[in-house]
């Protein structure tokens, strides 16, 4: 964390630009200034989302940038398209609860029994964001996205460790869902909106497509297979 002061300054600058543009509804600002479209800001966010509210987008953006901070390895989660990815996923059949058994009755259960709520992923995140923001307002005075970067990290750690007592929803469960969807957005094929320019694949050295290694496995045995990754769109 000590060697990324320059990216950190850029990140803070971008975050504050977003607040000024009304993209990030810090409570006092939101009361005094109506939300404006995000165009013209330094952010590469799309102007509109399929299903996310501006507050939800700001929350996811703050989470994505905390989990995937900009540094020498990649741009920030938001700049990699993670929030776009999340918006599209929550608008998809999966976000609407497809491939999930939703019959009642519903009962609280130990984690080994798996997800036991009636909420779809989209509903779960909506409820989780309301609860998480209420908790950060109570404990830190602000919505999550309005917190300073280190406070966001502390808040996420409290959720991850199960220390954050959210009202009506499990903070730990919310954290795990957030981590899952952020990592999916970072590493999935770019056609879903994240992993912009295949940055995540470049970061680890995953070649993507076409993945035809029959004639390469022996040649590159023990040697780094260093290629510019290709995605589905590159072959479409």
């Amino acid at each position: 964390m000590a060697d990324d002061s320059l990216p950190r300054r850029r990140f803070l600058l971008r975050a504050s630009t977003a607040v000024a543009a009304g993209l990030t509804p810090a409570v006092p600002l939101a009361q005094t200034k109506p939300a404006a479209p995000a165009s013209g800001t330094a952010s590469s966010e799309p102007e509109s989302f399929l299903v996310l509210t501006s507050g939800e987008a700001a929350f996811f953006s703050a989470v994505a940038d905390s989990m995937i901070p900009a540094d020498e390895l990649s741009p920030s989660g938001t700049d990699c398209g993670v929030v776009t990815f999340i918006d599209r996923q929550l608008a998809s059949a999966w976000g609407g609860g497809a491939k999930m058994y939703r019959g009642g009755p519903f009962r609280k259960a130990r984690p080994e029994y798996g997800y036991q709520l009636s909420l779809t992923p989209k509903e779960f995140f909506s409820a989780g964001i309301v609860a998480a923001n209420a908790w950060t307002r109570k404990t830190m005075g602000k919505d999550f996205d309005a917190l300073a970067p280190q406070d966001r990290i502390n808040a996420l750690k409290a959720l991850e460790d199960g220390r954050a007592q959210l009202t009506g929803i499990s903070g730990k469960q919310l954290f795990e869902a957030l981590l899952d969807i952020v990592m999916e957005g970072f590493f999935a094929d770019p056609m879903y909106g994240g992993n912009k320019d295949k940055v995540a694949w470049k970061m680890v050295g995953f070649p993507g497509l076409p993945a035809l290694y029959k004639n390469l496995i022996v040649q590159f045995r023990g040697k780094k297979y260093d290629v510019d990754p290709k995605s589905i769109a590159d072959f479409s």
Partner: protein
Amino acid sequence: MATKLKEVDAVMVGMGWTGSIMARELTKAGLTVVGLERGGDIKPSEHFAMPAVRDELRFSRRLELIQDPAMETLTFRHRPSESALPMRRFGSFLPGDGVGGAGNHWGGHTWRYLPTDHATRSHIVQRYGAKAIPADMPIQDWAMSYDELEPYYDKFEKLCGVAGKAGNLRGRKIDGGNVFEGPRQSEFPTPPLEQNLSGLMFAETARELGYHPFPRPSSNCSRPYTNIEGLTLGACQLCGYCDRNGCEANAKAGPHVCVLPRLREDARFEMRTRSWVSRLVYDKAAKKVAGVVYTDTRSGEEYEQPAGIVVLSAYVFGNVSLLLHSGIGEQYDPATQRGTVGKNYCYQLSRMGVTMFFEDRNFNPFMGAPGTQMVIDDFDADNFDHGSLGFLGGAIITCGHGDGRPISYRPTPAGTPRWGSAWKKATARWYQHALNISLSGSNYANRHNYLDLDPTYKDQLGRPLLRMTYNFVDNDYKLSEYCMSKAVQIAKTMKPTILGEPRLRRGDYDIVPYQSTHNTGGTIQGTDPKSSVVNRYLQAWDAHNLFIMGASTFPQQVAYNPTGPLGAMTYWSSEAIVNRYLRSPGPLVHA
């Protein structure tokens, strides 16, 4: 009121591996056969085409090819004293969906069970005495021996073009193959796949330690292969996207590649998709089934399909629940140990392993297939002396790469945060350099692990969901400890830069993370109707024209993947139907 259709000679309930093979063998014998499949059809050239098939999110995470739990799932609890809850998403195991079934998205591991696996109880009694088997472990022998099934294992391997190396050719032990396997009449149809550095490193160390490493037998064809149906499989491209996914190269064996093109050409066969069988029509007095009732999910219409022979060829859970929905057989009761349907539900001990990091080795974890693994069988089954160990069964210990898809595969050393800058650095640092030794352990039956119907939750047809009562027991934990100690010994000898903590099988069963789609039992085979559901020809004791295929007939589960015996037994059973049952319909075994 169901519309009654014209009678056919045979109907298959489910068109995965076993339904496809059985339908093929019966139509070849001249029977008219209808294949009923709840899901849709699949056209590999469209559904598994490049570039769309290379999509980790769609197939591995959103489970494109997996059964929809909204239609039908099961409920789960750890012990009979608890209320069960529905498995709202599949996780621990992933049943298939549509024509081809799990044969579309499997990894291709194709084993023959060991001769001692076919005689589990009698072998243990012979070697260690009857007291070695705990009272709450109702393990049984299979109803046919390895030697009896050998020609059918051989046939299934030649259907799939399995890649591998023989370790026992007609009794001659061959170094480099699995020297513990039963005698085989022929070498594998295609040679083993090329290994990654990881498999070679593991094998070298295992050999130094006196073990017997061999390439994992796998239906990922290593070269183009024309199978016993005259159909040609392609060569595996080692794409790293195999499991949970289809194969664009037609190199992974499956019903679509290996059987269905022939079956579809045959005018005696008719495929009906979106046809969801709700129950069998059972005549208890006559000990026969008259046919099946199904709902066409495109129209909501209900049909009765009369048939001379009914074959249950669904997944394990579908086979068991259809017997219970149809009132066939007696539900197993763990309190009295009476009844047979639902008995001996078993699973497998997975998610066990140890991760190593080698700073100066590049593994290219994205190159490979499920078959690019080396295995040792030295601590599997009864290949080692259990005399003083306090448990029965064992595990295969495996190593290799072939699924380095980065949403799911991102190993980092212990203590690394799961997000943030430090996580990014560690992920970038170690992705190419991590190596995992994995264990898959047998899971012997326990009297308290079983399947029945849930009193509360229903499927989309309004039928009760199947209820799984399951947990790990002492035998499992001890097996895990012992076999892991052997894996750790190998790992230490490999001298990694960082050696991870062993992941042991501890605590209660967790239904969320993927473990294996190797659920077994519930309609088990045996020699006595009091302790089994089907006889040695997989014919139901309670209905002589009902045959039940697949892993639901396994009396307990071994460390291997189940598809080999499941395919072999379908050929074995089909031969008994064609050569004996058709000539003289009635019980093939008299109890």
